């Protein structure tokens, strides 16, 4: 198996029987592994978070990156000596970076003692010392006095953090879905925020976007990588990294990913999530919003015309159509449209989709969309389906049952609901 998550995905079944020679090799591996593990544990029990222990964690994690306790031992080794002493607490769970003022994340406190005294326990510095060594509003430049010990400590921290980031790369390439590696990397990056000058740590964070790019090129749907990208962008936008909104460039990024591959469901999803903020930040007025909606609808309609079997396209189309309903609690692209305008939009889409049927009579997604949007139209107009619509609904449901018998229960429920069609149907 590719990693040691204990869960086999897509690994072909082989015989559990081994030859005597294989067994011997296996026993040898186990012995070595357990010796290494024992060595680490013994040091932890003695509370000896030395550079030697740190090296052992490298060895062990390269063999088994799923061993979360060892990542914690590595963190403790860093805090206990390798990294400079500092005033802030070491628990990142308390940090709420998007709201934290810059004042809390400037230069770390001066560690006057040598930071290489690795065996000393992590005694927090008094915070007053830290405050006197730097001013809260000092901007993002290296300290003016090059002899400053703070600068030296920071330089050393920077090197260590860089090495740590490098350490995780081959592990991520080998086990791209291992939560613990991603978490550790984020913890290191958080240390950069807490220990380094804003400009320096910002550069480090910016480089993370390159890593995400690489990971997404290898697997465009890796949700660890997408989640990581969201987190990195959030941090880059936050005051702790002297950031500003990146919604425009992020939106462009989704456009780029979609152009590369129309079926990139994750990119469509991200796009749908960015739009409300994008329009807000553009201070878009009603006209601009309507134009935006038109452009998105045109774009997706064009794509659907050639790829009506693509679930991702319909997903995004559904998102746009939901914006035409008064979907309670969800921000809308064009909130001031009148009901008549909404109905006109929906009718236009229904007509276009009906045209698709001529070329593609056997794609269930088309029938599903027609059903869905016809019911939406009735909802917007506050009425029940008329008799010709009812006939169409019955026909589309018949097609759905033919093309998609697996979900027969759902079509039957829908059929029943359409037959009854109580007021307010579809508002669920």
């Amino acid at each position: 198996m590719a990693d040691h998550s204990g869960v086999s995905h897509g690994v072909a079944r082989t015989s559990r029987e081994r030859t005597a020679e294989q067994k011997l090799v296996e026993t040898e591996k186990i012995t070595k592994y357990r010796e290494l593990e024992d060595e680490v544990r013994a040091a932890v029990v003695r509370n000896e978070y030395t550079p030697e222990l740190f090296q052992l964690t490298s060895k062990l994690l390269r063999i088994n990156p799923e061993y979360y306790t060892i990542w914690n031992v590595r963190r403790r080794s860093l805090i206990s000596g390798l990294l400079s002493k500092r005033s802030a607490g070491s628990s990142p769970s308390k940090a709420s970076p998007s709201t934290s003022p810059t004042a809390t994340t400037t230069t770390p406190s001066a560690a006057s003692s040598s930071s290489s005294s690795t065996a000393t326990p992590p005694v927090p510095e008094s915070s007053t010392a830290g405050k006197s060594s730097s001013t809260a509003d000092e901007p993002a430049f290296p300290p003016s006095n090059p002899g400053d010990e703070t600068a030296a400590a920071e330089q050393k921290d920077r090197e260590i953090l860089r090495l740590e980031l490098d350490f995780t790369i081959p592990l991520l390439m080998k086990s791209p879905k291992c939560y613990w590696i991603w978490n550790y990397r984020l913890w290191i990056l958080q240390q950069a925020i807490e220990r380094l000058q804003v400009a320096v740590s910002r550069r480090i964070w910016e480089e993370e976007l390159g890593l995400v790019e690489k990971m997404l090129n290898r697997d465009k749907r890796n949700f660890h990588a997408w989640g990581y990208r969201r987190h990195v962008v959030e941090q880059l936008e936050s005051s702790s990294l002297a950031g500003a909104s990146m919604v425009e460039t992020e939106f462009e990024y989704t456009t780029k990913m979609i152009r590369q591959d129309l079926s990139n469901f994750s990119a469509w999803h991200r796009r749908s999530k960015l739009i409300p903020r994008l329009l807000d930040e553009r201070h878009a007025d009603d006209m601009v919003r309507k134009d935006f909606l038109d452009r998105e609808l045109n774009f997706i309609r064009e794509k659907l015309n050639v790829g009506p079997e693509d679930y991702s396209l319909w997903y995004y189309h559904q998102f746009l159509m939901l914006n035409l309903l008064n979907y309670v609690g969800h921000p809308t692209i064009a909130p001031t449209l009148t009901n008549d305008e909404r109905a006109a939009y929906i009718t236009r889409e229904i007509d276009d989709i009906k045209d698709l049927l001529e070329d593609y009579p056997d794609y269930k997604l088309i029938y599903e969309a027609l059903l869905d949007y016809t019911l939406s139209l009735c909802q917007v107009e506050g009425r029940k389906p008329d008799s010709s619509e009812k006939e169409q609904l019955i026909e589309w449901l018949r097609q759905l049952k033919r093309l998609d018998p697996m979900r027969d229960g759902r079509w039957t429920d829908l059929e029943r609901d359409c037959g009854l069609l109580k007021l307010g149907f579809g508002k669920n």
Partner: protein
Amino acid sequence: MSENAANLPEELQLITEAHVKYIQSLDTRKDDYEYWLTEHLRLNGLYWGLTALHILGHPGALPRDETIDFVLSCQHENGGFGAAPGHDAHMLSTVSAVQILAMVDAFDELQARGKGNGRAQVGSYIADLQNRQTGTFAGDEWGEHDTRFLYGALNALSLLGLLHLVDVDKAVEHIAACANFDGGYGSGPGAESHAAQIFTCVAALSIAGRKDLIDIDRLGRWLSERQVGRGGLNGRPEKKEDSCYSWWVLSSLEMIGKTHWIDRDSLVAFILSCQDLQGGGIADRPGDMVDVWHTVFSITGLSLLGYPGLQPVDAVYCLPKSTVQRVLG
């Protein structure tokens, strides 16, 4: 359903005895390198194995005393449990510990032999991991947040009768922020819908008594679309089917009353085709290596599908219904 299952060809029957033996063998494979590399999952693995055995109707197939001793040997002074002795405490292993103790009816042993003041110590470990501003839960002191941990916390605390230790309303607010327009939920706000994360969110809302927040129609649609190809379920659009989603998708459908929106017979057939007929255990897909994770979530899935001879499973807790009834009354 039961008639249909009986009509399946012989090789597509659930080979209960072989699965029991497979699970019993898991802790004896000490000459297997993989056994040592997966120690960080030992307590979770015990929960998976024991749950599968209970659902298969063999609750006594693992020795009860040894089970309790092992669970308690994983506990730290702060009340949390690690994956095995010597492993750091974490939410995931702590939840497994509570679930195992619930299954073997040993909360009294926890009270008597656990660290500090028994149940309350475990409760405070879990409660301390809640971020009181956002309602989310961290996995451990290092701070990763994920709806998996939020669900785990509500699951274990409610079993322990200690739900009042956390801000349930805030937790619910956080789940609401993870909702997507397709009716699904992601690992955090902004994340795309994923079947396993949906299970954690829907189950957490169930425990909190807030299923009213779920967009049942849209969620049901999304979940039912997970059935593909020969009948197996996938976890996200345009992904391959995988037997473990038999649990994540089906339990979510069960909680919103829509299991009839997928085709039961072809799913049963798919799950059964993932069995290792020689060695026991169930794989992600036919012909692949088996593991205890896919074994348990296939068997609990079959239980939800009403497969004959299996004990009923609770869709919210992923425990035998009898356990949940005994603990929650």
